[in-house]
């Protein structure tokens, strides 16, 4: 895809926004246990990058991963059901918010270990290429991940072997509560430079800007130019995790939060649509999210007898943990 589809981008950021808001409601209602890491404020990145990918391309997400999963094309209803731990979820309720995966649309999974997914995606894309599939990959990670050795090792492997991967750093300014200035020596793009990887900084709040940068990078990568890094500068509107709704953590000045929230990707993209068109998309998204919540809550909880289903793909069975001897 080359030119941006303003309506499509808006639909995606709006979908993620409303999905996350409804998920937070479900956390508060006790329907989602364990809480979530809301993607609010960062929607433009997943939307812009995934719009530059093909359905057969691969992505990995993060613990803050619903946006990536939805933007790559997973069914919102089955995604919400997964968050609610239902048998009807993407992962049959075995993964939850931090591990939602849909391999059928190229989502190799949200991965809850910071910096861990880059090498996995690199291996998967390399394997497809070996078979002759015209596949590229995009791996999302936060600013905290740029200090993880295994991600830097993945930069090296991908660059060394010219694996077509787009490394997407969502720099929201904080690794949980640790500001970038307190954690990152040098720069994020400088890490790419060390491996001779081209790096581009983009305004992560502008879905079309993200899309333009990602589409250009993906085109170069697909043509054999080697991996690239995009640093999308963004701001997390809500908590690191919904537990912060209960336990207030004092690490972001209120004026900073207000300034960050003033640049809202949903409005930035929405303002590019005629008001009636925007309202139309909003109504469609609302219906989709309503249906997703209804589907999720109607889904059965998994049968505890199957708690260890899929532990082994080979069919090996594990001994039970009870007192059976």
């Amino acid at each position, binding site marked *: 895809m080359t030119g941006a589809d303003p309506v499509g981008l808006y639909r995606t950021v709006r979908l993620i926004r409303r999905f996350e808001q409804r998920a937070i409601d479900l956390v508060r209602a006790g329907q989602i246990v364990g809480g979530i890491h809301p993607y609010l404020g960062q929607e433009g990145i997943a939307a812009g990058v995934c719009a530059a990918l093909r359905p057969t391309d691969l992505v990995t997400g993060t613990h803050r991963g619903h946006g990536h999963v939805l933007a790559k094309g997973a069914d919102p209803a089955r995604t919400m059901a997964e968050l609610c731990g239902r048998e009807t979820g993407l*992962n049959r309720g075995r993964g939850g918010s931090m591990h939602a995966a849909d391999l059928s649309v190229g989502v190799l999974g949200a991965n809850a270990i910071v910096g861990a997914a880059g090498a996995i*995606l690199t291996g998967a894309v*390399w*394997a497809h290429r070996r078979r002759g599939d015209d596949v590229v990959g995009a791996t999302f990670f936060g600013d905290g991940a740029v200090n993880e050795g*295994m991600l830097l090792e993945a930069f*090296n*492997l991908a660059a060394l072997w010219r694996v077509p991967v787009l490394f997407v750093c969502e720099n929201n300014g904080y690794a949980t509560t640790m500001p970038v200035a307190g954690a990152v020596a040098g720069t994020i793009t400088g890490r790419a430079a060390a491996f001779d990887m081209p790096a581009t900084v983009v305004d992560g709040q502008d879905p079309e800007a993200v899309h333009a940068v990602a589409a250009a990078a993906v085109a170069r990568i697909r043509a054999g130019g080697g991996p690239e890094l995009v640093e999308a500068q963004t701001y997390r509107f809500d908590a690191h995790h919904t537990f912060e709704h209960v336990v207030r953590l004092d690490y972001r000045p209120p004026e900073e939060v207000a300034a960050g929230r003033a640049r809202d990707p949903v409005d930035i993209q929405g303002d590019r649509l005629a008001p009636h068109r925007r309202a139309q998309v909003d109504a469609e998204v609302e219906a989709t999210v309503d249906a997703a919540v209804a589907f999720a809550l109607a889904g059965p909880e998994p049968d505890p007898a199957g708690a260890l289903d*899929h*532990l082994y793909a080979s069919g090996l069975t594990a001994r039970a943990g009870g007192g059976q001897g």
Partner: protein
Amino acid sequence: MRLSYRRALTRALADELARDESVFLLGEDVRVGASMITSGLCRRFGPERVRDTPLSEQAFTSFATGAALAGMRPVVEFQIPSLLFLVFEQIVNHAHKFPLMTGGQCAVPVTYLVPGSGSRTGWAGQHSDHPYPLFAHVGIVTAVPATPADAYGLLVSAIRHDDPVVVFAPAGALDVREDVERLAPVPFGRGVVRRAGDDVTVVAVGHLVHDALAVADELAGQVSVEVFDPRTVYPFDLDGLLASVTRTGRLVVCDDANRSCGIAAEIITSVVERVRLAVPPRRVTRPDGAVLPFAPGLDRAVQPGREALTAAIHHVAKDPT
């Protein structure tokens, strides 16, 4: 055919590389074959399928996970057993967990091959661990072949298996040679009685099978020792062991891992949950928390040896009265 343990591993890799295009080899110095297992494979199969990696164990271990998710069957070689500590997270938290966490959407068929596990006299503290119980603990298929035929058969089975498998090839077994009539895959979770006996069952893991056989020979005439080789410590052939121990009523487990939470502890517990032994069982292991010291005499002092095994057998062989 006379076959060495090392060449059996090489042969298994070559046969699987030839049989299945999705198999490839990944690791440090595998092209040249610094561990002497992958020698000649690059010449035959090319550097795309016998891939040298930079010294980035975490990345290439996860690279293998990704390739497996995409339908390949990677074999990752680690020259040093302790590198498994470095990549434990990548294996346990990702490769092993993906099938369940995705609700059955994927398989991760990766083989981790560790040639030269355990003590290699003179390699000291950071190169001499034998952490197979850790993988049994987390539920990853863990093979510790003792013989060339099993080295071949278990490695072939590992590569064809749809889940991660760690294959420990103990340094103490690498020089073993035997006449082999037929090479074939060896199923997981099926042990074998290496020597039949009536008085005491000795479970020995990996290279210790050969020590147990030597001790059994020495004791012939005094104590009739049955030597049971589990071949895989996870899954473990408990039924096979119970068949032996219900006859002998006496059990010694010889395990080249640290004592606390070693595989010997698990084997003994699993047996005594099921059957009443004539006398309390014994285990011969490394000490708790062992770090292998450098000097050869010190290194030997903390490894389970024939002397300790002999003493343990004599101890359990005594009449309980």
